[in-house]
């Protein structure tokens, strides 16, 4: 299953922006920010759970983008490159913030995943889905956010997370099960 690409998924336009940025055109940077600020902020918001933290993380992402865009060889891959930077920034921040290891693929134990007993019953709209996502462990929340909310392809998610496509598929499978578990438990209450 692959999601439809969002309106701003246009590799040609991305490469156009990248090349102009690499040439040093200031207005191209403004367009780059206008085009990608909101998707990156939403991704950060989903993983951090706070507006202020998402603001900080997004600013850090842009700093790294500005300093690294000259080295981006394939402008058409701007989208996974941007989300890859955001992924690294967010993982660094999560590690620093919580000082605890993230759940790895090997360590994941579905039965041991905590379920928030006090959570409100999930609704069927997007806001409720985001709520449910936020309750998942970081890896599962992230892979669902990238695939369903940001609508990256499996290949792009694989590039962003720097893991093989097969790992992305297994994470997605586990994340969907966890989310279903959450929805099921909360639906009974």
């Amino acid at each position, binding site marked *: 299953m692959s999601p439809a690409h969002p309106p701003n998924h246009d590799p*040609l*336009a991305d*490469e*156009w922006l990248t*090349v*102009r*940025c*690499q*040439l*040093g055109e*200031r207005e191209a*940077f*403004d367009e780059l*920010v206008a085009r990608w*600020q*909101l998707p990156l*902020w939403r991704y950060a918001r989903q993983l951090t759970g706070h*507006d202020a933290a*998402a*603001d900080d993380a*997004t*600013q850090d992402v*842009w*700093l790294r983008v*500005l*300093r*690294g*865009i*000259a080295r981006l060889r394939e402008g058409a891959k701007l989208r996974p490159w941007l989300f890859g930077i955001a992924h690294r920034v967010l993982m660094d921040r999560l590690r620093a913030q919580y000082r605890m290891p993230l759940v790895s693929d090997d360590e994941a134990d579905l039965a041991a995943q905590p379920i928030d007993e006090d959570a409100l019953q999930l609704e069927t709209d997007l806001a409720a889905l985001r709520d449910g996502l936020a309750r998942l462990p970081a890896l599962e929340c992230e892979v669902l956010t990238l695939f369903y909310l940001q609508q990256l392809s499996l290949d792009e998610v694989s590039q962003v997370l720097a893991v093989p496509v097969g790992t992305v598929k297994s994470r997605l499978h586990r994340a969907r099960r966890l989310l279903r578990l959450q929805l099921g438990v909360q639906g009974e209450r």
Partner: protein
Amino acid sequence: MNMTAVSALLDRELSARSRVGHVLLLLAAAAMATITGSLWATEPALPARTAAAFAVMTGMGLCWVAYAAWVLAARRVLLGRQRVVASGMATLFSGVALAGALATGLLAGMPAAWPAALVFAGMTGLALALLVRARRDYARLCRRREQLAQQLRSPAPG
């Protein structure tokens, strides 16, 4: 979402003044380190304090070279035409310094001019190589920009 903060970040990160300043710092520090290093290495019978002063000045110059190079590589990345301009400046400055060192060596017979000329020759060669690469990359980006502009103006049917 804080667009004002991102805009301020763009202004700060893309400031031309900062880039030009660091390019000039790099060139001036390299010239200073070369001259003081040459004097320190070749002047006979320097008083100990003078030799120490030259050594310290050479070290300081090299530190400034390292700092400016690091800033330009990691913090104020040079893009497209900026790289062409910066490497052109480096070629011009190191070429002038090389000519000055050669003239000093030939006309004034100062021994310190020869190691300085050697270093400046190396800098000129490096600057030329950077200039050639920067011009090639810039031309490639301009060609690709033009191709993409055409494709975006007339998208393929279907």
